[in-house]
């Protein structure tokens, strides 16, 4: 199972959701944001996704261990330029074949780097911001996912300060997928930087329960 975590706009907290879903799904998280690496890369040495996409490294060797295993992205402009997206399919499939479920943290926008992971993935999950105008952006990504045959399994409205104020069922109707409202929580916000997924460090919290609810919507097998 390869799950793409996407969201039209930058800054919605997509990476944080992808990382925490990785913990809940016992998956490897792949940082496919080729131009801006977001996920922890360990001590920064060793092959990364740029290397795998340029054909220089075996994808499975690029996976770093940790509370959530991560296949990090490279951090150079030259590496981003040399990345061949057509290899992403094989890269993701070989990680899946040896390590099990894969969560792909997709970049924002609608360029090829956002589209290809959607085309490869078996399912996708959209992360949206609670701001009203951000929904239009989410709908555009939803349209792209549909074009590329990535079935939308769930949506997460992220960083919500007042959960009661979010029209979750209206958003679910618009996107055509069950939608969970993720409360703003400092433990979630620092979970990537400190490598402490909320389902591990605060399993009783509301935010951990929401992450588990999202994870439950992802089919384990197809």
């Amino acid at each position, binding site marked *: 199972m390869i799950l793409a975590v996407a969201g039209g706009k930058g800054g919605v907290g997509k990476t944080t959701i992808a990382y925490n879903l990785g913990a809940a799904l016992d998956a490897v998280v792949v940082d496919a944001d080729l*131009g801006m690496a977001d996920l922890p890369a360990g001590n920064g040495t060793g092959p990364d996704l740029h290397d795998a996409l340029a054909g220089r490294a075996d994808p499975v060797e690029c996976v770093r261990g940790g509370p959530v295993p991560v296949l990090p992205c490279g951090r150079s*402009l030259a590496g981003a*330029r040399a990345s*061949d997206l*057509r290899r992403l399919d094989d890269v993701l499939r070989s990680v899946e074949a040896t390590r099990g479920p894969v969560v792909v943290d997709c970049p924002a926008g609608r360029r090829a780097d*956002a589209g*290809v992971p959607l*085309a490869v993935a078996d399912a996708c999950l959209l992360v949206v911001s609670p701001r009203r105008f951000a929904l239009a952006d989410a709908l555009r990504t939803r349209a792209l996912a549909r074009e590329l045959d990535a079935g939308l399994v769930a949506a997460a409205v992220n960083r919500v300060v007042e959960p009661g104020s979010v029209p979750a069922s209206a958003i679910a109707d618009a996107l055509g997928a069950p939608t969970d409202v993720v409360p703003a929580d400092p433990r979630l916000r620092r979970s990537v930087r400190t490598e402490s997924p909320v389902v591990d460090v605060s399993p009783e919290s509301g935010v951990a329960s929401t992450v588990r609810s999202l994870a439950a919507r992802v089919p384990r097998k197809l």
Partner: protein
Amino acid sequence: MELSWTHDRRDGVDLIRCRLVNDAGVPRRVRLENRLGGPVLPPRRRGVPEQGWDADGVTVRLPPHSTRALGYACVVVESDQSQGSGQEAENAEPPVEIASVERAADGPPDGAVSGDPPHQVAGESAVRSAVRSLGDHRPPRAVVDAAGGGSGPAAVEEPPPEPAEAPPRDVDSAPDPSPTETVPNPSPADPVPDPSPAEPAAVDAWLDAVERRVERAERLDGADVEAATEVLVAAGGLDAVADLDRRLERDADRLRAVAERAASLAARTEDPTVPTGALERLS
């Protein structure tokens, strides 16, 4: 449906150029097939064959009263080289023919324009259609070269530090190097200068500074009190972010201007071939 064609051979490769004219008042779909003895090498976009092309030819849709020009290459593997390599390929037989013409459904023309949602050709994988029809994600070559990047993990630039961890930097009040002052602008009379070591690093530093400002703004956008406080503390207080909006607007304008210039320079640098061999022979 009218077809006219030209056939050239260069360096062992056949180049066939076609022109189709649909003079009917209805849209029609045409199948052109290659008659030369080798597979069609179609036009490609970022490595993926353009829509409608396959190893034997191309299927295109022409709107009513329209003309379409297209071309392809072919490497002819002929068992008898009776034509001789120096001769023009003026056979009695045409290299390309119309195999079929039929009425097409009304609707948008074939051939996705970049920006349109990708519509897949039957048999084409979703990945290839995404690569072909969505925008190129790669940083322009000019920016990569200016940043001094070689390929490989050895060429590394430090990731922008997290605002909460780095010592508060005076990012917003530091003067930016203006891109027009930084990027070398050789006059036609000068020999092409190597960019001095200071200049790629300056472009890099400018992009890093813009990225930090954007990240700061993204973290403040819709943040709760605790998150906003964290960002302000790292930035060095309210004054440091007071004119963030204005600076970002200016950043956006500059980035667009540089991106346009870099993209057109990149296209130009890919085009000319320096005839080093010929120059050496003549010198």
